[in-house]
């Protein structure tokens, strides 16, 4: 992007003053290299978001921002219901509550090294991944609704994991306000056999080695030690969330003129929070959040089974579970006043700082673990929410590397088999049902995740705690 379009606030903060129909400024957090390489569409989409009714303070973009649907991926915007604020299906995206959870294995990398191949094979056999894969659960109408109301708590009640897991999940594993009757039969039909599946695209399950610690105090509290192995799971609400996104996007596009909303882009389709359509979407979207939480909980259980078989006595404990495609009602201080706002995070991670009441007791004084996914060959990071972050971008940070190259370009540049072999030679075992899928997700097709995380750290959005290196990647 052309830097002349911005007012540079600091080395990692770039501001666009309101113009045209913008109600608030737009702010991008990124270093100069990241922002230069950022797609022009981010500028267009972020300034469009800033025109939406009831938006508060500013429209924000994280350092991993790229061209999305209506909102840029890496976009954050908050709305006040009492000021005509809106909720946007595009602002949450199709993969509602897509997110990352990371688990301790308590094992050292050298302990699992002799079993790496077998772990990769067994995890790949046990965890359904890729197009058309199905889980073991078949949910009837009542069970589907119970799952959509209960989230990970429902999964725990059905024997998937333990109650101790729930404290380490946002919303304590169960999103309040879910309304299964606002979820269409079509969406439920699409989900019937998809609970406990990874999906495809950029979703994965990885074994990762902790290779560097930046903040020893937070690392101690998260129990992260160099040389130890963690498991990270990246997936979302599967077909149910996709269908809810699709259906409400259309309804909001058609209804917007009736609400007096002139959409600069159809993908920005939205409805007033206080309208029947806005409320219906919130009820359905919260049900999809629960679906994603249940999904990651079931996959966690399957992962634990594999470890129990191959490494008896191993206990996988949850560090934290974050969702990065959501709209949540939260309290934030704006101009010295506490306000209840609907915060959209599309490809952005919530990053509550120390003292936040939503955090579990044992993490409250240190801040929330912020889990940043990598891309097969590259690093992942664990950060921690900060005090400063609470006054910036409504306690939000980046969510991953962000794509730098289209899938088309990626398949022209890399071949799946060669890439799998090359990564194996670097010690990263890839298991995937699709070689073309692997090529499309080549690490080189993504931005430099380390630069993204550094920018988030320097901007005060969240602080770096640890870097993780992939050992095994089950790719959907």
């Amino acid at each position: 992007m052309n830097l002349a379009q911005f007012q540079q606030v600091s080395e990692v903060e770039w501001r666009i003053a309101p113009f045209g129909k913008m109600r608030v400024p737009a702010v991008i957090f990124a270093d100069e290299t990241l922002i230069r390489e950022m797609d022009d569409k981010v500028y267009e989409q972020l300034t469009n978001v800033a025109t939406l009714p009831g938006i508060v303070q500013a429209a924000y973009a994280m350092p991993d921002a790229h061209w999305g649907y209506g909102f840029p991926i890496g976009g954050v915007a908050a709305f006040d219901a009492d000021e005509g604020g809106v909720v946007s299906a595009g602002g949450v995206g199709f993969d509602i509550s897509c997110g990352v959870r990371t688990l301790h294995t308590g094992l050292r990398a050298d302990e699992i090294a002799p079993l790496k191949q077998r772990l990769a094979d067994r995890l790949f056999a046990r965890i359904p991944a890729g197009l058309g894969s199905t889980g073991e659960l078949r949910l009837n109408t009542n069970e589907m609704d119970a799952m959509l109301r209960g989230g990970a708590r429902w999964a725990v009640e059905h024997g998937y994991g333990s109650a101790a897991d729930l404290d380490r999940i946002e919303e304590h594993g169960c999103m309040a306000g879910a309304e299964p009757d606002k979820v269409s039969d079509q969406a439920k039909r699409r989900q019937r056999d998809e609970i406990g599946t990874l999906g495809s695209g950029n979703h994965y399950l990885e074994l990762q080695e902790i290779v560097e610690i930046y903040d020893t105090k937070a690392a101690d509290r998260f129990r992260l030690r160099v040389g130890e192995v963690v498991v990270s799971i990246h997936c979302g609400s599967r077909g149910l969330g996709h269908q809810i996104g699709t259906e409400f996007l259309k309804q909001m596009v058609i209804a917007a003129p009736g609400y007096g909303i002139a959409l600069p882009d159809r993908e920005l389709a939205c409805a007033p929070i206080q309208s029947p359509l806005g409320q219906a979407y919130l009820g359905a979207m919260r049900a999809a959040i629960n679906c994603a939480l249940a999904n990651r909980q079931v996959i966690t259980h399957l992962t634990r089974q594999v470890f129990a078989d191959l490494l008896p006595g191993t206990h996988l404990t949850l560090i934290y579970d974050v969702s990065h495609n959501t709209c949540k009602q939260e309290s934030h201080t704006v101009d010295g006043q506490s306000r209840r706002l609907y915060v959209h995070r599309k490809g952005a991670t919530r990053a509550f700082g120390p003292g936040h009441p939503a955090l579990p007791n044992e993490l409250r004084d240190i801040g929330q673990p912020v889990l940043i996914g990598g891309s097969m060959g590259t690093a992942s990071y664990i950060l921690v929410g900060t005090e400063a972050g609470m006054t910036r971008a409504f306690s939000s940070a980046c969510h991953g590397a962000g794509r730098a190259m289209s899938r088309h370009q990626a398949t022209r540049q890399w071949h799946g088999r060669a890439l799998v072999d090359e990564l194996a030679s670097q010690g990263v075992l890839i298991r995937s049902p699709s070689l073309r899928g692997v090529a499309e997700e080549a690490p080189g097709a993504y931005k430099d995740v380390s630069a993204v995380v550094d920018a988030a750290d320097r901007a005060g959005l969240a602080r770096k705690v640890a870097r993780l290196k992939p050992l095994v990647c089950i790719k959907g």
Partner: protein
Amino acid sequence: MSGVHWEHFPHQADMGVRGVGPTVAAAFEQAALAMTAVVTDPLKVAADEPVEIRCEAPDDELLLVDWLNALILEMAARHLLFGRFEVRLDGHHLHATAWGEPIDLDKHQPAVEIKGATYTELGVRRNEFGQWLAQCVVDV
């Protein structure tokens, strides 16, 4: 390029699908083939099992997105891939048959699952050769 055909166009994170034909219905059929090609080679998909699809929308563009989303739903819920399409349009009402077969991982080597058809780069219009073009980006 003229004539009945489909193609992909680039999008940073996802994939653009474009169908071209002498009528809107033909362009819709080609766009559906382009969407199958995001997942696998359409020529590898046997046209065994017919599925009837009906949808309606206020305009051609929204109808294209509805059509592709109806296919995505049927692919996901029935675990099918589609290789042949027949679309009939009556105003903004669409009646179609899609033929396909169950997903076979070895045979189809599916690259990716499609989450939804979007309004990004959405268009249903005549191209410079007077042919109908139907396109949008699909989220994968």
